[in-house]
């Protein structure tokens, strides 16, 4: 729903080969896939991944693919070669626990890239990225891009240190990185929203753009805080999805102006003011 750069390419539907599926020790996994014909993607876009690797015969339980942010792999592949793309996920429900069993060489179904990319900040603005839980995965490539042009703060939150996914990758970037864990095992003890306070303390609206991805309550809290400070706040929503490309109408988010928007197609990126937060489950 935000003004976003055009797609790099049209989405594809293919079977991708698992290259690696690395557990990070905290319940998180980094899945590397070889995708042939990958058209490239914009930071903020996602793929639909089958709930687990392909088996000798199709199994219809669980039925639906799972939306997953593209963590890395935003360049289109060169013709005839396959490109590596990565997703970060946490083994929680049925789909991700089955995915966690995928072995190198197995196949997963992929449809993507889907959705729109993040809209650019104004030049000279500080860019503040706030990631909670697996939401962090959506922000990494965006942090890389923004850091080339302007000052970037990255605020990451999780329950405990081990659950801060992708931490080393963010540490390797030239950004102002701050962490919060609920149990205090790394960085500030508490929620990531608390890290936002000092940054917003005396910032002027035109000086900062906020990008947030994480659990709905966290995005809602950031959105409210940003709104009070008059700062533009961009969120990446995680509604349930069946198709990912705008045909099931399952992913609708209610809008403040009334009506709904399809998160998979007009989103997942929204200006926080567009979203009717009270109408989200």
């Amino acid at each position, binding site marked *: 729903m935000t003004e976003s750069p055009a797609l790099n390419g049209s989405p594809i539907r293919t079977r991708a080969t698992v290259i690696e599926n690395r557990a990070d020790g905290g319940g998180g996994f980094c899945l590397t896939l070889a995708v042939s014909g990958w058209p490239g993607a914009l930071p903020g876009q996602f793929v639909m991944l089958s709930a687990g690797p392909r088996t000798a015969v199709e199994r219809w339980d669980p039925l639906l693919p799972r939306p997953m942010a593209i963590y890395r792999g935003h360049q289109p592949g060169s013709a005839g070669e396959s490109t590596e793309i990565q997703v970060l996920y946490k083994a929680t429900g049925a789909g991700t626990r089955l995915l966690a069993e995928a072995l190198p060489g197995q196949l997963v179904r992929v449809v993507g890239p889907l959705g729109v990319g993040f809209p650019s900040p104004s030049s000279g603005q500080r860019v503040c990225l706030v990631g909670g839980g697996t939401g962090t995965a959506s922000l990494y490539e965006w942090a890389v891009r923004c850091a080339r042009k302007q000052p970037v703060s990255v605020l990451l939150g999780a329950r405990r240190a081990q659950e801060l996914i992708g931490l080393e990758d963010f540490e390797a970037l030239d950004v102002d990185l701050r962490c919060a864990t609920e149990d205090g095992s790394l960085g500030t003890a508490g929620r990531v929203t608390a890290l936002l306070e000092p940054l917003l303390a005396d910032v002027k609206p035109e000086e900062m753009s906020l990008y947030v991805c994480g659990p709905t309550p966290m995005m809602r809290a950031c959105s409210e805080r940003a709104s009070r400070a008059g700062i533009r706040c961009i969120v990446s929503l995680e509604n349930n999805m069946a198709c990912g490309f705008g045909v*099931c109408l399952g992913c*609708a988010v209610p809008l403040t102006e009334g009506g709904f928007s399809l998160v998979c197609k007009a989103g997942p990126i929204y200006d926080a003011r567009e979203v009717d937060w009270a109408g989200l489950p």
Partner: protein
Amino acid sequence: MIQAVDTSVEFAGIPLRNPVLTASGTFGYGTEFAPFLDLRRIGGFVGKSLTLEPRFGNPPPRIAETPSGMLNAISIENIGVDAFLNEALPALPDGVVVIASCFGTDPEDYARLAQRLSDSPRVAGVEINASCPHVKSGGIEFGQDPKLLGELVGRVRERVSGPLIVKLSPNVTRIAPMAEACQEAGADGVTLINTIQSMEVDVETRRPVLSNVLGGLSGPAIRPIALRMVWQASRAVDLPICGVGGITSAEDAIKFLLCGATAVQVGTTNYINPMAAGEIADGILQYAERHGVSRVTDLIGALEVNSPSAS
């Protein structure tokens, strides 16, 4: 030398290059599938059910996953008939067979809508959705009572001269009287089944998963029920039947043809594999080649049953 197989069928007076259509509400307005599938590879598609005015659906969550199935309670969110005729249809490539689906809250709504759609040269036929299980009024009431359904179809028939198809609800005690009512009221074909009214609960929040509480079950889980209803309907009426429900493969589609369907619709599977309908069309051809079937129409109703008394 393999003899070419004739895959064409005629459903409700609509000539189709093969019997594979896609189901209303699972194929958007067609263009969404352009990246994945040449729409001319399949028989045609049925668009999302339309209303006279654009319409918003239910608040989220609207979908849930169940064993080999999914629930939805979208509630006929659509762009409205004007945008469909003026924007969606012109965006489609030539040679794509489009069936338009209509939804209304009273027979007059349905009739006006069907007439406008049927008048468009780009619309090959009109499918009446008299069976949406989770819209508070309309749809399902007609779909659960043969008398009301007959009246509805009769009203629409008066205004529509082109192919008129009625989509039946599975949420009925007996499907045959519903199909018979459509036949008597002058429909050209029936499509079955729509989703089955269902529910899912989250034991952690102790709430229904869907904001609407109830939703419609679709996907492979319902295929045996759909197949049974198609078989029962095909024995009750002479109307051509379009079979829908849980089709994931050419073999699934062929089961419906054998049970008496003239064509099939692929629904939920489009979400999981947007190329599925094309693959199913190809698979039917391969099956026919492998089995020496020269015309796909030879498969229609070709089920061999020992005890035809069973019903």
